[in-house]
Structures are given as C-alpha cells and as structure tokens.
C-alpha cells in the first residue's frame, strides 16, 4: 500500500453491513408496542428483550450494535480486506414523543463512526487514517435531517458529515465531498476501488429531487461526478464496486435518475463489478436492464 508504505495481506473477502439503526432510547424490558422506549409492557409478549426482537418494529438496542461489532472484531476482522457500510446509523423518526433532532443524528453518526474506527483502525499508530481494514461508509436517508431531505452541498450537513467521516474520506476529496457527499476509496491501490454514492440525490422521496434531467438538480450534478470518476477508473485500468444506501431500482429512484444510473452501470460494464446497497432490510437482488434504460431515455428525449 503506497499510501502507508506497508505491505498488506489480501484475503479476497470483504464485508457488507447496513442499517444498524441503533436507538439509545431502547430500554430492555419496556413495551414493544411503544417502540421499546421505556413504557411498562402490558403483557409478557410485549417485553423488549436485551438484544431486540425480530419483526417487532423497534430499532436496534445499543447492545445489539455493540455485540455485533464485537463479534465481527473477533471472528471476521482478520479475514477481510475492506468493509462496505451502507448507512442509516440512527433510530427511525417514529416516536412522536421523542422526535429526532439534527444534533442527535450527527451525534449518533459520530458515535457509530468512532466504533468502526476503533474496530478497524490500526491500533499501533497515531495516524487516524491508517486502517487495518478500509471502511467505506455511505449516507442513509435517516442520517439526515429531516429524514430523506438532503440538499446539494456545500451545506452545513455535508460539512458536518465530512467532519464525522474525515478519516474515511480521502483528504484530497474534501472539496468535492462537500458538494456531493460521495467519494472514491482505493481499496487495492491502482487496482480496485469502491465508490460511496450519495443516493439521496437520486431518491424520489427526497423532496429536493425532481428528476435527473434539469442541470440544476442534485442528481444531474451527481451523475456528472459519477461519469468523470468512472472514466478515470477505466483510464487507470482499475475495477470498481458501487455502494450506497438506497438501491437504484425503479421503486426508489426518480425514473430519469433510475434510467440514467442504470445506463452508466451498463456502459461501464468493463469496470463495474456490482452494486451493494441497504435501506430495504431484505436480502435479495434486482437485475437492471441497461438497454431498456437507453431506450427509455431515448423515448424521453
């Protein structure tokens, strides 16, 4: 690794983790019916257990997050090359008595980023950018305030986000990150990269996204960034994984954004290995058709 002047052993493995949603208000033994936020349970079935309960609707107890990271540290950390971590690092905004604040969102994101840093950072150096395992975070729709709404940078939110992720985002991308909240990490220098794509600029639930056709739209600007980056990766003979929070499928993206994004993945099929996303909480895959995307765009024109 020429960045740190050290040899690195590669394992040919990496981790994808997503949607941790830790909730500091989660209280063991409280009522599930009241999102596990402290109210006494009415019956035994309503009891919020220590590590959380599947399908109950509560967010993650902090214990679940901490033990998950501990388990990864003990069983996987020494066997992987990098971590793709696709966002949503705070509870949902579904408790009317306890609405989330912008401060809480940033604070929890900072706490979770700190835990990743502690787990995967090199403990034998004072350089906070020296990682045993590279981490590539991306922005979730719940990591912004109000949820889903994220304006094109530079804004207070992109600045704050850079501060929180400053050890994960390569320094030379600080200015571009402040615009796009997206970045590139070389996980194997000169060979393999991972793109962290801010999918909120393409997400139809973001009230600031109308389409990806108007040149002032954040999605349009974001796709221009993507194009330059993919061109450079191709020129360097590298390969790349795409990553982000909201999956680029019709259900989630504005149609012009969906078709254009799909077309980029199609036309750069010589370098793009695949895409890893979160948000939907279900393990599945969606094939997207590049030729169909071009036809749809041609029709639009």
């Amino acid at each position, binding site marked *: 690794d020429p960045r740190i002047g050290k040899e690195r052993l*590669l394992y*040919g*493995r990496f981790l*994808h*983790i*997503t949607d*941790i*949603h830790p909730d500091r208000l989660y209280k063991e033994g409280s009522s599930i019916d009241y999102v596990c936020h402290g109210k006494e349970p009415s019956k035994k079935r309503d009891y919020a*257990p220590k*590590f959380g309960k*599947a*399908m109950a*609707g509560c*967010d*993650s107890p902090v214990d*679940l*997050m901490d033990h*998950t990271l501990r*388990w990864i540290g003990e069983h996987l950390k020494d066997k992987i090359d990098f971590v793709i971590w696709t966002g949503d690092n705070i509870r949902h905004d*579904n408790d009317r008595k306890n609405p989330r604040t912008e401060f809480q969102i940033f604070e929890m994101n900072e706490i979770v980023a700190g835990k990743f840093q502690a787990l995967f950072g090199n403990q034998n150096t004072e350089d906070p950018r020296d990682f045993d395992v590279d981490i590539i975070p991306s922005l979730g729709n719940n990591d912004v305030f109000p*949820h889903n709404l994220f304006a094109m940078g530079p804004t207070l939110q992109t600045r704050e986000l850079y501060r929180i992720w400053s050890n994960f985002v390569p320094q*030379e991308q600080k*200015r571009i990150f402040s615009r796009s909240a997206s970045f590139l990490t070389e996980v*194997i220098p000169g060979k393999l990269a991972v793109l962290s794509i801010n999918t909120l600029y393409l997400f*139809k639930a973001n009230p600031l996204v109308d389409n*990806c056709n108007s*040149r*002032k739209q954040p999605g349009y600007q974001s796709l*221009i*960034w993507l194009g*330059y980056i993919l061109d450079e990766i191709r020129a*360097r003979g590298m*390969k790349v994984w795409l990553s982000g929070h909201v*999956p*680029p499928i*019709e*259900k989630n993206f504005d*149609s012009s954004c969906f078709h254009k994004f799909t*077309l980029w993945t*199609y036309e750069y*099929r010589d*370098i793009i*290995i*695949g*895409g*890893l*996303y*979160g*948000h939907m*909480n*279900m393990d599945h*895959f*969606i*094939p*997207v*058709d*590049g030729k*169909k995307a071009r036809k749809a*765009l041609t029709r639009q*024109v």
Partner: protein
Amino acid sequence: EESHKFGQDEEDQFDELFLQSADAASEVHLMGASPVGKETYMKSVRKTIYQKIHDKLEEIVDNIEIGKKRKKKKTTKPKTLDELSERYSIVNIGGSIVPTFNPGFRVWEYNITGLEQGTQIQQFKPWNEFFEDLEKKLQTEFLDEVAIEGVESNKVRRPDKTIPKKKPESIPLGPAYEPQLFSPTKFVQYFADLKEINDEYYGKTDSGNDNSKAAKEAFKFQVEYTSEDKPYPMESLLVKDFLKLASDLTQDNKLWEIFKERAFISSGYDED
C-alpha cells in the same frame, strides 16, 4: 377465460405499479423498523422482474431451436445467455442489522488469483491533481448550466452529459461478466437468531451468571446460508448466474419459499 385473463392483467398492473410507485421511505418513516408489505413486494419482484428474465431466457432457447431450422433469420434479440447477461447489472440489496427481520450481514469473496503477478501500477496523475481538476470542472459545469438556464433566448440544446457514451466494443467485459481478477466468487450470509440469543441470555442470567459474561456467551452470528448451498447453489456470482437463479425462482415454488425465507433472514415472516 377472458374474464380470468382480465383479472390476471389487472393484478400484473398492480404489481408493476407497486414496484414503481410504492414509496419505501414513507413506509419506513411511519412504521420504523416494522416489516410492512415486504411479502407483497417480493411477490411483485418475482412476477415482474424475475418473470421477464425467465421469459427472455425462454426466448433464447426458442431462438436456438428456430435457428436450427431457419439459419439466416436476423434478430436484434440476444441469442445466448452471455449476450442477454451483458444487458444487465445486479443490484445487491443487503439484510439489515436493525431487527426488521433477524440481523444479518454478508461476507463477499472475490478472485485475487494473479494479483501478485499483475502488471506494475502504471504511473498516472496523482489523485489529488485529478480531484483538483475535477472540482474545477464541476464548478464550471454548474455555473455554466445555471447561467444558460437563466437565458431564455438560448435555444441551443447542449449535450446531456449525464447520458454516457456507448462502451467501445474493443474493451472486453469486466469481472461481473467473465471470470477474472476481482470477479465475485462466493458469499456467506450471516445472521443472529435473536430468539435463540435472548432465550440463552435470560436462561444464563436467571441462574445468577454475570450479565456481561452471559451476553458475550449468548450473542453470536451464525452462517445462514452461502451462495453455494442447496437448493440453488450458484457456480459463481457472475451476472448470468443471477439471471439463471431469477429464472429458476419463477418456476419452482419450493425454491421460491426458501429464497423468501432467506430474504427475510430466517425470521419466519409471513405477511398473512
């Protein structure tokens, strides 16, 4: 029969609409981590997206058979699985840690054979210079566009830079399509069985054990399945392997049930 067909079409339309317009974000906003409409969503994925792929694969088989009889028939449709798979890319969507279902994550494995013998890193402009240039380009681009949009008389259509040029034919396909360096080869899906973990934890703390020790002992992830596991083992994780799986999932209800069970991270979720 006609009325049945009509009903069927209506249902298909509903599925298509569900896929395109249902707003996952507002569901999440209202319901937090609760699983809402996930089975309906999966059903629509199967009926629309996976079924279309199955139909296209069937066409390939048909074309091959027709081709034997009428060799010179020209068609723009893909003639082989490789040609069809080239059209697609795969959006992989991960299970979450938040217990909408059980917590889960995935470890991907990829081919690094030959990396050490690879050619030396070519000398390129340092990344900081590239990003400095890019910053200037994006700034100019944005200011130009805003200025142009502000001028009403400007009727000249400028090329849309968010539509990529076609990939030059001379460039070979990448690791998603042909086995090579960095091709994904396998994945291992891990999950935490929360019921089992909580039961074990409370069993230990009831008997007077130290809570933090009991928590450490009880909490574990286990392998839920791997991409090589039955009943639909994948030879590799190239795009064509995903297409074949999508097609198989439309044809075999037992496979589909297992696929769904895995999609819902072995939580036993059933919308009904």
